[in-house]
């Protein structure tokens, strides 16, 4: 075997490559120049970050263009832009969560926040709280109760309808025109603006029960319109991945189709279905607009979803911010709104977490 040693010096394959430290040098340059650039209008960490990022991209890409040529520079520019896009997308997430935490914790820690409603809380109390430094009174009990009841009712309507529909699509539909139509319109339904769903429920009950019918149940119907398509889609996916061998094994034992579905197919897919339902709940629990037009907003505790206006966490946040209890001193209302926002975000995140855990923990071990 001929031994060919590596040619001394750089081979033609290495011609024109940026050294490995190039990004770091560019970054250092960018941080320094960025600080200088931002110092003129007034230094902020945020401005520094933005300026540095832009300068980094310019320095790094220009350097690459000089050493490596246009193709490599274009590749580096694309990389900078793509990474930049991701960082930009993180900004609102971090900012929202930070804002909710900072503004929400004082409200959350107020005594009675979870146990009292806004019944009888007027601007007078808020003015006094601001002027004399007294405690902010009033809480979210009525809203929390309303949210839980409305969401529960919506779930009770949506899960049977959604699950049965997905069963029809997977087990009975077999690409019939009706099944295809349902699939298509379920997809379309996921795109219905939430406020239109609310208007639909309101219009329906105005027509059937009487004008101005606004109750928790109407809100639950509105949320169901939003929730059913989500449940159908996720359950459908889950039922589809149940292996056909299972169904055939059951049929071969002389079990009828409907029992096969109930006793074999659904138990196999149950973790995925449960996870999908949880995610659907998480989606509708934060809906504001449909509740606003169907349940109005109450300040008192209403235990019946079938009579009278009902509060919910999202509409509570909305009204507290838009129409503070005391227009001259909105701070207490803001505090309550952010406290409620924090509770809502925790609820949603918990539901998402539960959905993931359910999907992971109870998944059939042999799925993939």
């Amino acid at each position, binding site marked *: 075997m001929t031994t060919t040693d590596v040619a001394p010096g750089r081979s033609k394959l290495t011609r024109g490559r940026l050294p490995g430290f190039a990004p770091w040098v560019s970054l250092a340059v960018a941080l320094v120049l960025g600080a200088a650039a931002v110092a003129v209008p007034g230094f902020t960490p945020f401005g520094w970050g933005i300026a540095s990022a832009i300068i980094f991209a310019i320095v790094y890409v220009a350097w690459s263009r000089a050493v490596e040529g246009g193709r*490599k520079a*274009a*590749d580096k520019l*694309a*990389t900078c832009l*793509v*990474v930049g*896009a*991701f960082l930009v*997308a993180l900004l609102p*997430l971090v*900012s*929202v969560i930070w804002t*909710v935490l900072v503004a929400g914790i004082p409200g959350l820690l107020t005594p009675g926040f979870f146990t009292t409603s806004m019944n009888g809380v007027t601007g007078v109390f808020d003015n006094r709280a601001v002027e004399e430094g007294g405690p902010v009174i009033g809480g979210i009990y009525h809203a929390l109760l309303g949210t839980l009841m409305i969401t529960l009712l919506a779930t009770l309507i949506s899960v049977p*309808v959604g699950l*049965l*529909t997905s*069963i*029809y699509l997977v087990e009975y539909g077999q690409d019939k025109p009706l099944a295809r139509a*349902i699939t*298509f319109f379920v*997809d*379309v339904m*996921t*795109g*219905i*603006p*939430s406020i*239109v769903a609310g208007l*639909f429920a309101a*219009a329906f009950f105005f027509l059937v029960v009487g004008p101005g019918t606004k109750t928790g149940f109407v809100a639950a119907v509105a949320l169901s*319109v939003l929730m059913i*398509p989500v449940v159908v889609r996720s359950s459908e996916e889950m039922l589809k991945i149940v292996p056909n061998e*299972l169904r055939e*094994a*059951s049929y071969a*034992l002389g*079990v*009828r189709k*409907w029992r096969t579905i*109930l*006793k*074999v197919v659904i*138990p196999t897919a149950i973790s995925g279905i449960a996870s999908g339902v949880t995610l659907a709940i*998480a989606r509708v629990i934060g*809906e*504001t*607009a449909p509740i606003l*037009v169907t349940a109005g907003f109450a300040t008192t505790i209403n235990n019946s979803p079938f009579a009278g206006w009902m509060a919910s966490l*999202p509409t509570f*946040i*909305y009204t507290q*911010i*838009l129409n503070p209890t005391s227009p001259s001193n909105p701070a207490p209302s803001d505090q309550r709104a*952010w406290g409620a926002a924090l509770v*809502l*975000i925790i609820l*949603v995140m918990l539901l998402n977490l539960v959905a993931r855990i359910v999907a992971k923990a109870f998944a059939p071990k*042999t799925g*993939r």
Partner: protein
Amino acid sequence: MTTAPPRQAERAGVPAAIAAQDSPRGDKVFSTLALTAGCLILAVLFGVAVFLVVQAIPAFTADPADIQGGKGFLAYIAPIVIGTVIAAAIALVIATPISIGVALFITHFAPRRIASALGYVIDLLAAIPSVIYGAWGASFLAREISPAYVWLAENAGWIPIFSGPASATGKTILTAGIVLSVMVLPIITSLSREIFLQTPKLHEEAALALGATRWEMIKMAVFPFARPGVVSAIMLGLGRALGETMAVALVLSSGALTVSLVQSGNQTIAAEIALNFPEASGLKVATLIAAGLVLFVITLAVNMVARWIISRHKEFSGAN
């Protein structure tokens, strides 16, 4: 995989006992139930349209002078339709490039080990309720961004969309559009991500083996494959942006239609309904429901086009 079916069948319990106590009627009942549920969904969608139309009719037949504004329904709805389109357009102009960038980052740039975790992070954006975005936009973003509007009005005021005087509160249609863009970003991202991941490895490798850089590979293999899917993802994002209520209702200090994006003014259909419906009665209810009907028709059309592109794309990629 090969041993799975018997074991699962056992666990799911298919004892002969079930078979014994069975009657054919159960099958009939159950399939009918499933069919009914499916039809119910179609009925609901149909019902949405019918009930909205029935309740909206008074707004179309009423004396134009009685409609808010006094010039009839068309004169009432036209500016808020335009406002809706402006807000959605701002949202898409901002969200589309960022979403595609994020989707590319997660699928083709980020280290594979953390890519799915980064996907979850972006999904968190979708989990945050819209009212919280609205509150954030109204109390944080509007305040922080208003100096930028003042600067724009002073230095770029000759462009009509930046003409001053800029809103002092920052509660403008541009702020609402930015908040909307944050809300549609996870939608466009997650769909684009799925489509980018479906790019055949064969074509990516073909490009790389020709000596393409990563970006050139993406231009040669990923984008041509993903284009229809990304277009429909953007359409779905558009549907969401058109129908989103809270971000606009809380953020925008609404008013008459104006060209300037940095002044207060403009209004969207969804926000108009949310702000007025709770206290509306009589003809006002009919007018707002009619506005909702218009919104429904617009979003329905956008969504149907998007879904149609997706389904056509599926057949296309399945055939290859």
